[in-house]
């Protein structure tokens, strides 16, 4: 997030696009609900599913999955043609407006409504006018913006809109991605990515190579960016990747096109998994190393607003399970490393030395105060919101972006759109939540949301087990007939291995950031004849 959770009361209104906030980030969802329902703030929601927040929205757009860019361009088209964008902000703090405005010309409300499947184009005009009146408006998004082959462009479009409205770099505004894992922000910050060291320092830079070789006392660092997860699996099948060491990941469940992932894991010469359970992925391992759960260890995690917090040890370890860092260190030592970290804090002190944005953060500060990176020195208070007064790069850059359709469009054979996501009571691959009594009792099995119209056409009853197929696979799953979902579109949560959404999903990826298109693919539903 460019801004902070505690700024939610300062926003005059919210645009929620591609985020089912009350189910997937419920605590933030409730804070937004409080502002809208109890304090009269404005709300615009864009989502293919009639999510809870849509009920409180001033304007709700039930768009076709994969058409975010079109509707964002549509809002911006109105702001420009009506002359109600923040001209002073655009003139003084941004660049590239003319080029973008030219691309936006054709995104008239009628053109956009046709792409997105919106009945009344005038709603786009009215919503854009409302946005212009909200000072400031905060934009929140999640994987409903990013998990497309056009994911990077979707993110840039959200930034375009917020800059055009003058909402970046102000308290209560911002472009606020809600991150889905408790430490996905931290894992990225720490350089658990193929192209960057900590704090996004590119591996391709000779300067960074020299810096980290000096810090780590080695001479062998590579300047060639590595493979992303999906590329690792493709290259395993191609014979280029021979071994994978996986710490706490469950790609068999979480990655698209499950059959392909399993084929990749089976083709490895050596596969090590480090986890708290024998997951679907661990079944394919040669060696499984037992790790401690988060309650059995100490360390820091970084949340969606860049806030670094300290986790304390709550419970003693189970069996012989060890901290993940201890295990990695033991393997490294056996391969020649001279590492000697005695506790997590020793590692954190090293992180501070090589990570400019974390340099001023200590365990003491993370435990007792609100500390958000960038925090470059010990006496720095941390950063509540980014791009204050000027953007990190100087001027905010508008990027002209054209709408492009998803990788897989519906056709005669696969006539419906499948979209996937999470639900309130479960988390990701279900490894933890399905072993929690209350959560498992709340929702025990997977389901597919089908619009009543479609259910009628296919002669499907609520609760009936049906077959769902895509070009990659087929599953059987219970139908939930609900008008939460748009006609001709179905939704499956991906938590349930026995009705696994990722058997079906498309592994087509965004060319820039390699994110897979989980949110839209073509599918076919069929009644199972007795």
């Amino acid at each position, binding site marked *: 997030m460019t801004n902070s959770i505690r700024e939610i009361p300062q926003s005059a209104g919210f645009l929620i696009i591609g985020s089912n906030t009350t189910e997937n980030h419920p605590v933030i969802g409730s804070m937004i609900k409080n502002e809208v329902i109890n304090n009269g703030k404005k709300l615009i929601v864009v989502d293919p599913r009639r999510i809870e927040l849509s009920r409180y929205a001033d304007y709700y757009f039930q768009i076709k999955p994969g058409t975010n860019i079109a509707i964002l361009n549509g809002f911006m088209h109105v702001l420009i043609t009506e002359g109600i964008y923040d001209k002073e902000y655009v003139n003084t703090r941004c660049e590239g407006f003319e080029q973008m405005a030219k691309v936006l010309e054709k995104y008239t409300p009628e053109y956009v409504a046709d792409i997105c499947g919106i009945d009344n184009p005038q709603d786009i005009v009215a919503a854009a006018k409302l946005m212009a009146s909200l000072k400031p408006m905060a934009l929140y998004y999640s994987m409903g913006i990013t998990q497309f082959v056009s994911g990077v462009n979707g993110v840039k479009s959200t930034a375009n809109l917020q800059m055009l409205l003058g909402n970046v770099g102000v308290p209560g505004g911002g472009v606020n991605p809600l991150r889905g894992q408790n*430490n996905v922000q931290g894992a990225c910050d720490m350089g658990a990515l193929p192209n960057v060291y900590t704090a996004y320092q590119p591996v391709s830079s000779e300067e960074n190579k020299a810096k*980290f070789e000096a810090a780590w006392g080695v001479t062998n660092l590579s300047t060639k960016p590595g493979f992303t997860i999906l590329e690792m699996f493709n290259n395993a099948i191609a014979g280029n990747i021979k071994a994978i060491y996986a710490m706490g990941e469950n790609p068999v469940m979480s990655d698209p096109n499950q059959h392909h992932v399993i084929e990749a894991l089976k083709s490895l010469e050596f596969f090590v998994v480090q986890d708290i359970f*024998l997951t679907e992925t661990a079944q394919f391992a040669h060696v499984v190393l037992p790790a401690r759960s988060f309650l059995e260890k100490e360390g820091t995690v970084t949340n969606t607003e860049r806030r670094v917090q300290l986790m304390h040890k709550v419970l003693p370890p189970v069996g012989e399970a060890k901290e993940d860092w201890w295990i990695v260190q033991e393997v*490294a030592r056996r391969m020649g490393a001279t590492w000697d970290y005695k506790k997590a804090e020793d590692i954190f002190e090293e992180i501070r030395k090589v990570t400019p944005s974390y340099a001023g953060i200590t365990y003491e500060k993370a435990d007792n105060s609100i500390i958000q990176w960038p925090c470059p020195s010990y006496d720095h208070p941390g950063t509540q919101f980014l791009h204050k007064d000027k953007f990190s790069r100087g001027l905010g850059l508008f990027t002209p972006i054209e709408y492009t359709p998803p990788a897989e469009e519906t056709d005669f054979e696969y006539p419906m759109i499948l979209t996937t996501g999470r639900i309130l009571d479960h988390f990701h691959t279900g490894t933890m939540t399905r072993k929690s009594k209350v959560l498992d009792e709340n929702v025990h099995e997977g389901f597919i949301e089908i619009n009543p119209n479609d259910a009628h056409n296919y002669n499907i009853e609520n609760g009936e087990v049906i077959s769902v197929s895509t070009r990659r696979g087929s599953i059987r799953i219970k139908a939930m007939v609900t008008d939460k979902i748009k006609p001709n579109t179905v939704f499956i949560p991906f938590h349930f291995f026995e009705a696994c959404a990722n058997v079906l999903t498309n592994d087509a990826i965004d060319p820039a950031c390699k994110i897979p298109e989980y949110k839209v693919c073509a599918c076919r539903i069929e009644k199972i004849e007795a």
Partner: protein
Amino acid sequence: MDTITFTIDNKKVQGERGQTVLEVALKNGINIPYLCYHPRISKTGACRICLVRINGTMLKASCVEPIVEGMNVVTEDEEIIKIRKFILELLLSDGDHNCLYCEANGECEFQALIQRYNIQEVKPSPTRIPKKIDYESSNALRRNENRCILCGRCVKACREIQVSNVWSFAERGSETHLVADDDKRIGESSCVKCGTCAQLCPTGALTFQTVIGRGANWELKRETSICIYCGVGCKIDFYKNKDNILVKAIGNYTGPNNGHLCVKGRFGFDFVHSEKRLKKPLIKKNGVFEEAEWDEALDLVAKKLTEIKEKYGPDSIAGLSSAKCTNEENYLMQKFIRSIIGTNNIDHCARL
């Protein structure tokens, strides 16, 4: 900000315009008792337990009384004690408060005040009617309205924090009682089981199912950590019993969540006690996993990775780090893959 100076019990204190007497008192360690007040919700001024004497004359509810320059506050005198006792006795006579059977025993705010003001057993009020007990309908929450003192914290927790508006009051006078939705049992209502109402309940009227049979409140130990689920990073006070079993999770007010939790953050942690947890390293031999000692497993991993690195080069090896692990662990994993293996093939589930 306007700073206002005044005295509480002859002690000079300072607050900011808009604050109440109770807020400034609590900040200065002055222990005015209260029941319906809670810092996380709007002020009610209903229970009257927090009343104080202002400028030697007026009795006012300190939770809703704005501070004024030079005011003189007395938090307890004979008459105030008498009134507080009277209120506590009324509340006691209108419910069925038997601590022996109560999950809140030992951490009940009402019980603490009964003891503080040395209230003895009172006769049931003639207008008292037995109220609803709902221990079964929800797998998350328990409700016994005979312990309810009608403070309204749960109603406000659901309206202002979770914003689901499940709870409200029905009827009037001695018949006043809580209702979920249009008078449903909790398990059949629209409750999403965030548990904030039970967290704020000052008695045992609303409690968590998970506490049953897991030890007395005074036996529990508390430790604070951060939720494992989504990216909000809720700070949680975990309570465990003598056997190191988790009993309950309470939202911490200094975290980004400001005391709130969702159903996962409240009830989603018993997986750590699952029988299925891995307890020893496993090595697959002839297609079947067999338990191994750490040294054997670690030696094997190091040997195989070294062999593959020598035979096919460092770029034939890849590491998957995890958004479920700490910063320290992610840092070490990428350091291992980059400096010990010698490749940038490191990634995690950020995009998934």
